[in-house]
């Protein structure tokens, strides 16, 4: 399914009832949740499908750069924690595809769109995870950035998405602690370990600064999303929150942030930074990132390899349910 995001600017068609729209927006303004069977403007449905679909795709594509390091995890503790963390991410994808299904598209359709390059996933997962320290930076800072975005979205107006996000954020908070602890160990370890960590931060800083999306002045979706309480903070507000919370912690670990324009303005409680290259962002999320093709090819390979299993399952379901065998 191709998600049409090019509907009219307010997402309304001439056929839709202005009265129903007014009631819908009044419900949202009263803080009520919109549920799957409630009336909603087509634009609201489309924006939500777009966002939840991208979010779900990001969870399964995000499992790849971290999953790659599970076989290399250097201790029992790390191997178990990383395996559990990546398992959570796949579980989030499952929850999110389920939430998106309440709005129309099936999981199968959404996965097909992902592997055919018709839908997007988060910019950060288009980049390679080159060393063990990348796993630490991803788990700490990307999960931290995701928590800022998702705790905000969890207060949003669409019930199934908000509820899924509350569960997801709970788990992401553990991931962030696990990532931070890994960063602390590397930062306080040998020089080689510290250098690995600094190198990882150097490579990940720009993708992380782009994580919350284009600057407000160029973002095309933000106004509509804020009006319908799908999103409660702008991209720049989220970025500032991330910087306020995490730059001091990075400094505490002795890390150098690779932006010579980064400075804090006390009066406005604002961080100034070099504006990310939004052309790069657009290029990357549209499939022009260093590993965009590889990520999609891996997902396609897994999907195609598993086709015989899904066909067998469908045949089973059509014939008769197979009961759970008794426990020993």
């Amino acid at each position, binding site marked *: 399914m191709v998600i049409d995001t090019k509907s009219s600017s307010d997402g309304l068609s001439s056929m839709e009832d202005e009265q129903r729209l007014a009631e819908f927006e009044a419900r949202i303004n009263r803080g009520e949740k919109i549920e799957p069977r409630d009336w909603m403007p087509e634009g609201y449905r489309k924006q939500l499908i777009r966002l939840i679909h991208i979010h779900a795709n990001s969870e*399964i594509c995000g*499992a*790849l750069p971290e*999953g790659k390091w*599970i*076989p*290399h*995890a*250097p*201790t*029992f503790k*790390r*191997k*178990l924690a990383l*395996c*559990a963390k*990546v*398992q959570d991410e*796949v*579980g989030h*994808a*499952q929850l999110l*595809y389920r939430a998106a299904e309440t709005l129309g598209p099936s*999981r199968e359709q959404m996965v097909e769109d992902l592997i055919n390059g018709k839908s997007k996933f988060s910019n950060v997962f288009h980049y390679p995870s080159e060393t*063990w320290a990348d796993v630490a930076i991803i788990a700490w800072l990307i999960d931290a950035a995701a928590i800022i975005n998702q705790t905000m979205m969890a207060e949003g107006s669409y019930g199934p998405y908000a509820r899924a996000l509350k569960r997801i954020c709970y788990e992401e908070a553990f991931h962030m602690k696990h990532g931070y602890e890994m960063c602390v*160990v590397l930062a306080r*370890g*040998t020089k*080689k*370990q510290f250098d690995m960590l600094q190198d990882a931060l150097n490579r990940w800083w720009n993708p992380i600064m782009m994580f919350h999306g284009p600057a407000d002045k160029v973002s095309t979706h933000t106004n509509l999303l804020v009006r319908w309480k799908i999103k409660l903070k702008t991209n720049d507000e989220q970025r500032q929150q991330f910087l306020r919370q995490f730059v001091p912690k990075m400094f505490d670990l002795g890390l150098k942030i690779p932006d010579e324009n980064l400075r804090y303005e006390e009066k406005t409680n604002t961080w100034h930074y070099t504006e990310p290259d939004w052309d790069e962002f657009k290029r990357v999320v549209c499939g022009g990132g260093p590993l965009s093709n590889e990520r999609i090819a*891996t997902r396609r*390979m*897994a999907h195609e*390899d*598993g*086709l*015989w*299993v*899904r*066909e*067998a*399952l469908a*045949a*089973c379901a059509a*014939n008769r349910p*197979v009961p*759970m*065998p008794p*426990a*020993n």
Partner: protein
Amino acid sequence: MKSIESFNDLDDMTRTAVVDLLYRLGDDALVMGHRDSEWTGLAPILEEDIAFSSMAQDEIGHAHVYYQMLHELGEPDPDTIAFGRKPKEWKCAALVCVPNNRDWAFCIMRKFLFDSAELVRLAALTNNSLVPLAQLARKLKGEKNFHLMHDRLWVTRLGQAVKASQDRMQRALDQAYPLAMGLFESTGTDEVLAQKNICPREADLMKEWESAIIPVLTEAGLQIDANAQPVLGGRTGKHPEALGELLNSMQLVYNIDPSAKW
């Protein structure tokens, strides 16, 4: 027979036999868990991705407790055992070493044969005379039961679904069965463990395993090759090249600096 309350009560010969048994159990579990974890992000459906990851964590956790027990018996700490040994020092069976090769039929069949074998062994160990090992077996048996419920469901479902899936599962069984027979390779410690009522003889365990798996395979429409010969050598450190490759991958980061804290 009298219970052996603690490892301190073991005579030297029995102690050596118990160490050998724990290495076999721990190495099988860790390599199996490693293989299961390699499915993360790649399984045929999201639900199985999650299931394989859970089972991987259980296996890795089991290996950790077996190695912890070895540490109590004077062996190195669990991380050194896992990340600091060369292939010839490992005692896992060839079954768990085989790479996944993106072959889900083989992997689910391997899990079924492996978990069935483990459950037979753990059930025997729950009543063994070495008290700490019996306590541990009771704990692990519960988790293994869940694994086996999962595997049996899939083996029957895929065996019965359509001709194409049954053919794949039969090929998987033909490949995995001789390897799984190697789980019961007898080592020099067999007799001591049996005499001390710690673990039954491998040949006896294998008979029990066969009676446990045949009804499930029959229900699935699958047949064991009556002429299958066990693939041996794993218990004495003779492994396929795949184990060396797996260990290179597993020990990659650890070997950057084995003395560092990671």
